[in-house]
């Protein structure tokens, strides 16, 4: 039972029920589409990056499992206001939390709320659910256009 409560922490269930920054973003200047063909998860990410290279607004739409939806929701909160470089660095730390070397990232505190996903580590098949939004963000920031898939 520990694995289960570690995975589906209240914060994750809450963001699954009521995802933040959910919807379209009419003034987006970056966007990306993420797809996990194995489970049918799909998400569209809208980002507005300022001239100074800062993510000043971000939103997403789509459907998926609790992990993928909560991850997208928490990601939008985490990267809003960050520079593109900071967002990419955060993705690196988030990835380490889920699937990096044993022991996770060097500084888990730097992940803030995203640390609620630490339980995913015990369920390797679900890592893709948690990282779909981040891969899509990476692709959108890099110029995007192409669909990002987990496969």
């Amino acid at each position: 039972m520990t694995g289960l409560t570690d995975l589906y922490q209240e914060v994750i269930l809450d963001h699954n029920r009521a995802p933040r920054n959910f919807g379209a973003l009419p003034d987006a200047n970056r966007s990306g589409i993420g797809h996990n063909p194995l489970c049918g998860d799909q998400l569209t990410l809208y980002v507005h990056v300022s001239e100074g290279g800062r993510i000043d607004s971000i939103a997403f739409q789509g459907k998926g499992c609790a992990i993928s939806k909560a991850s997208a929701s928490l990601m939008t909160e985490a990267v809003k206001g960050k520079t593109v470089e900071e967002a990419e660095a955060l993705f690196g730390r988030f990835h380490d939390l889920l699937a990096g070397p044993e022991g996770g990232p060097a500084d888990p505190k730097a992940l803030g709320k995203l640390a609620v996903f630490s339980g995913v580590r015990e369920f390797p098949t679900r890592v893709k659910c948690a990282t779909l939004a981040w891969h899509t963000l990476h692709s959108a920031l890099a110029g995007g256009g192409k669909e990002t898939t987990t496969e």
Partner: protein
Amino acid sequence: MSTPSSTTTATTATRAATAATATLDVARVRRDFPILATTARGKPLVYLDNANTTQKPEAVIRATDRFYREQNANIHRSSYVLSEVATAAYEGARERVRAFLNARSTREVVFTRGTTEAINLVASSFGSAFVKEGDEILITGMEHHSNIVPWQLLCARTGATLRVIPIDDRGALVLDDLHRLLTERTKLVSVVHLSNALGTLNPVRAIVSYARAKGVPVLVDAAQSVAHLAVDVQALDCDFLAFSGHKLYGPTGIGVLYGKESWLEKMPPYQGGGDMIASVTFEKTTYAELPHKFEAGTSNVAGGAALTAALDYVTALGLPAIAAHEKELLAYATARLAELPGLRIIGQAPEKASVVSFVLGDVHPHDVGTVLDTEGVAVRTGHHCAQPVMDRFGVPATVRASFGLYNTREEVDALVAGLRKVREVFG
């Protein structure tokens, strides 16, 4: 149309007679499968993913072990006794499969890597000889991707068209459309016997006789069905039939294409290489006799030996007894699942076997699968390699519990208890 169960029952009367007295002693049978005594995430393993692959009895594990310890050599090509032993094991497996399917001759039994390769073999070989632009291949709306994509590739190569018999809201074939879709342009019908995604049992005997009257050959994808009901190729009168060892309590990496000799004789080789030739010069190669013409390269000899053990095992228990047990279990599971609020069973055809596919409210199937996993319950979640079926029912994925000969009511109860836990977590 008659039901598949009535058509198969009549012709397997002899098998039924020997096994009818036996009901399955599930407690004893479970002891034959070492993996069933293991735990998953600290809980006793409840393995309900048999449509994906089945677990292996001791006899199959021992046959594999024994082959490599005592019988291993390459086959059909050496002068020493060990090679004769290995050849006898492999050709013995062919005869065992022939008897299992009631084929006329071992010339009609081609070993492949599995169902997928068997279907690709027909699409490639039959396709290159008999399918051209303007022709049509007819499949159904409940095919596994392995009975869709090979035909799409063939159609792309030749300019033929793929046609699809639709399924109704219960998950049964709309057979009236078979009559409309099977035309003089149809070169082959390829139909799944037992749907892996819905559990629907299709009336293949009736489909074959309708197609036969029009002179159109039929391939039966029996990947799921062979482990759950007695399959007799002469009674079905199908032209081709494909199955995999690993879904029948046998090893991975070996499967079977049954083909009527009259078709196999007319079909060109699938792959070229050793063992499929009679003689080779740079000017001209002549091919080996059936079935070796279709078996290029070194075969899965150990797989053959283990497949024999699997078929012996299943036959000794008796497919009618296995079918009766699983039918009872499916009915029990269907009734228990109906108790859960918000649970919707996908696939409620009148004729079903061994598979129950469902969604639970708006909880994503992957989340359901993960919660069940923490309870030691192994089910498949996803599209089951049948995305058109998911689209047909408007779901991205389902949870699928699929039963085998060793499953019990207590395991169904564990599934239901796990689903209640899903409700606790997700509300």
